[in-house]
């Protein structure tokens, strides 16, 4: 297993190869280049598993493999690989989900007779390669570069059906909103380079380590705009956070994710559930050593996370299309992860990241199979009663929903509960902001439970409400296979880190994920972060007591939400209860008018400014230039009049000229006095 880490670059290059193959020879290959994609992702998956075991054996790998720009008297800009528990875990997640999505795409795209398959699989291949490149990046610049490439692939894949009007504008919106976030991220990257001179995550000159030493006063770093070191690190942290908020669709920049549902469902599953949206949270986890040093930034992250969780969950309640509900649930779940990171729960957030990747991918693929059955009609009110016609999809979907809602044995419960637990104990330990965030997170659990089961009951339970719902179009193994695999994963991944069980029943050593994440470089492991977090933890009735109470409360809320949904929607003829909300429904349905105000900023503010500028430019700047030329033309016209053609005038001018000359010379020469 030792040499396996040298094959790490292959993980990234295999999907890139499949991209080239699909792009070049896709037309001539059976299934439009899908096989190349499946082969590549399978290869990467195997390699990732091998890397995973090598890393859990205590190995780590941090090598620079390519010098991008060699600075003669300045620092070099390089690409390198950093394989440690966090990145190997993420490698496994991304490659597994990518593989399953590729297989699923056979069913979703090929069988449905889509055209342009080579372009689709090329896009998927490039996306997987860029995402893996981002995961293994060893410095902030490489991370930013692949961060942007991932944004490009999401643009290409959302806009796959470019012949209609919807997808291209959704793709444009997605790219622009994330680009706005990446603007701040780019300033952050440049600021880190300027402040620390290097942007490496790990190794001797890693910038989190330099920041830590700078704060302890061991050596000085150049700060800018006259700020002190602490203030400047907070600013840099917030700048990078801009990119994270954009990519992980957190509160202000979340509007692109629901529109991104215009893309094919496997794309939504891969990109907008499991991997790309996770890039932001992964980035914060990657440079957590830097964020931990600045408590204000952590508090802001926690607040954004908590608020987004609640905010998105409320919007998910009233949606009609199955994919819209899942989109808002994704935003909400990533809110939890940000909450976990903000509250100092590094392991909790990473745990939720992993479990969420599986069950959300499962839910999206389940939705995909339902959409195939419903001939691409996503409206839940036309579905109903699919339970007995699509058993495999139903049970997998159910396991995913239970995980999402956070019901005990399923993965979602353990990870979400741990996030809330960390927030609670650090909140009690004397930071009221975390308590507020905890409250928002808790409330969101109730809404999550409600909309999840509302979705399940509307789609699978009750009487079929439309013709297609009565005899849905069957799905083949390539759809059911991935669903089954993910269904099992959604149920079992919780066992990896059952903290409450460990604390309540005192069974030491079952928090495998915690130990796993401790095996990294000294500056990157969970233990090191635990020491640095600025919160102290307070308990009500001892540690075990708080765990029990926390778990009970969150489970209670989840079950409450589920029960409400059961009461309202688990009836043969469910009716639109959300109308009772009246005006609140319209506000929720229109997503608190977030879309409108962002579109207004783009079209209502920026475009008129540019039109005014254009008129200014044409009128005044160009006017001045043309003005100067017209002055000379006008002057020419005037002077021309002197030449009248009459000889006497010329004689007169001559005489006057002579007189003036004589006068002038006379005055100068002193002839007169």
């Amino acid at each position, binding site marked *: 297993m030792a040499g396996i880490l040298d094959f790490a670059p292959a993980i990234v290059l295999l999907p890139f190869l499949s991209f080239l193959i699909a792009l070049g020879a896709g037309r001539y290959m059976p299934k439009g280049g899908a096989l190349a994609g499946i082969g590549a992702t399978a290869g990467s998956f195997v390699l990732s598993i091998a890397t995973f075991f090598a890393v859990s054996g205590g190995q780590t790998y941090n090598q620079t493999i390519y010098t991008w720009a060699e600075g003669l008297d300045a620092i070099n800009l390089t690409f390198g690989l950093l394989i440690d528990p966090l990145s190997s875990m993420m490698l496994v997640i991304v490659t597994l989900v990518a593989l399953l999505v590729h297989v699923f795409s056979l069913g979703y795209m090929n069988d449905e007779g889509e055209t342009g398959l080579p372009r689709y699989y090329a896009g998927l291949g490039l996306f997987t390669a860029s995402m893996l490149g981002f995961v293994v990046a060893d410095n902030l610049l490489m991370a930013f570069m692949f961060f942007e490439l991932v944004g490009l692939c999401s643009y290409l894949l959302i806009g796959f059906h470019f012949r209609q009007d919807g997808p291209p504008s959704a793709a444009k919106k997605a790219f622009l909103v994330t680009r706005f976030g990446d603007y701040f991220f780019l300033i952050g990257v440049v600021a880190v380079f300027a402040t620390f001179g290097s942007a490496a995550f790990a190794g001797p000159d890693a910038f989190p380590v330099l920041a830590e030493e700078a704060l302890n006063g061991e050596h000085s770093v150049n700060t800018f705009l006259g700020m002190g070191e602490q203030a400047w690190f907070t600013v840099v942290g917030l700048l990078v956070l801009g990119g994270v908020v954009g990519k992980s669709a957190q509160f202000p920049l979340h509007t692109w994710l629901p529109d991104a549902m215009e893309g094919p469902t496997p794309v939504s599953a891969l990109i907008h559930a499991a991997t790309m949206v996770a890039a932001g949270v992964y980035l914060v986890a990657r440079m957590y050593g830097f964020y931990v040093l600045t408590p204000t930034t952590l508090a802001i992250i926690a607040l954004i996370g908590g608020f987004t969780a609640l905010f998105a969950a409320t919007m998910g309640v009233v949606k009609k299309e199955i994919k819209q509900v899942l989109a808002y649930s994704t935003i909400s779940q990533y809110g939890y992860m940000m909450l976990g990171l903000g509250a100092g729960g590094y392991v909790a957030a990473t745990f939720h990241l992993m479990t969420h990747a599986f069950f959300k991918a499962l839910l999206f693929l389940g939705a995909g199979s339902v959409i195939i059955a419903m001939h691409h009609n996503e409206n839940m009110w036309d579905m109903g009663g699919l339970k007995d016609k699509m058993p495999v999809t139903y049970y997998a979907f159910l396991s995913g929903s239970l995980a999402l809602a956070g019901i005990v044995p399923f993965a979602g419960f353990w990870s979400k509960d741990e996030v809330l637990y960390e927030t609670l104990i650090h909140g009690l330990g004397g930071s009221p902001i975390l308590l507020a965030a905890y409250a928002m997170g808790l409330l969101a659990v109730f809404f999550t439970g409600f909309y999840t089961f509302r979705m399940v009951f509307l789609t699978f339970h009750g009487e079929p409400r439309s013709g297609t719902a009565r005899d849905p179009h069957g799905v083949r193994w390539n759809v059911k296979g991935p669903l089954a695999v993910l269904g099992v994963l959604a149920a079992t991944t919780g066992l990896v880190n059952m903290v409450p069980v460990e604390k309540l029943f005192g069974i030491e050593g079952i928090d495998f994920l915690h130990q796993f994440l401790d095996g990294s470089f000294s500056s990157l492991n969970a233990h090191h972060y635990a020491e640095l977090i600025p919160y102290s933890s307070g308990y009500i009735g001892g540690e075990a007591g708080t765990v029990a109470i926390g778990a009970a409360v969150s489970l209670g809320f989840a079950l409450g939400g589920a029960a409400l949904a059961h009461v309202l929607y688990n009836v043969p003829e469910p009716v639109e209860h959300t109308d009772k909300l009246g005006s609140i429904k319209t506000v929720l349905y229109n997503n608190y008018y977030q879309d409108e105000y962002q579109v207004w900023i783009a079209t209502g503010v920026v475009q008129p400014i540019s039109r005014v500028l254009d008129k200014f430019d044409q009128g005044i700047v160009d006017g001045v230039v043309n003005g100067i030329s017209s002055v000379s033309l006008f002057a020419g016209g005037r002077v021309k009049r002197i030449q009248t*053609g009459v*000889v*006497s005038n010329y*004689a007169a001018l001559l*005489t006057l000229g002579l007189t003036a000359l004589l006068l002038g010379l006379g005055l100068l020469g002193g002839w007169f006095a």
Partner: protein
Amino acid sequence: MVPPQYYLLLSAAVFCIGIFGLLTRRNALLFLMSVELMLNAANINLVAFSYYWGNVTGQTFTLFTLALAAAEVAVGLGIILVLYRNFDGVDVTNATTMRW
């Protein structure tokens, strides 16, 4: 001995009368006359200074200017003839085509 200023004054007067004629008249023939006048003003100067320097060059030169004046009038009359033919009249203000 008459000091040269007065000769200069005389020639200036004659010269300006010539110009006055040139500026105010509209008949091309009178232009010629005025020009003659101006030329002779110059001759007055020449002779005056010939006397002033006690050198005969001035006077010899005057002879040449007289000859030249004759040549000039000859050509002038030719031009006036053509002017008359083209613009049926010797009124100078009608012939305004010699411009941009």
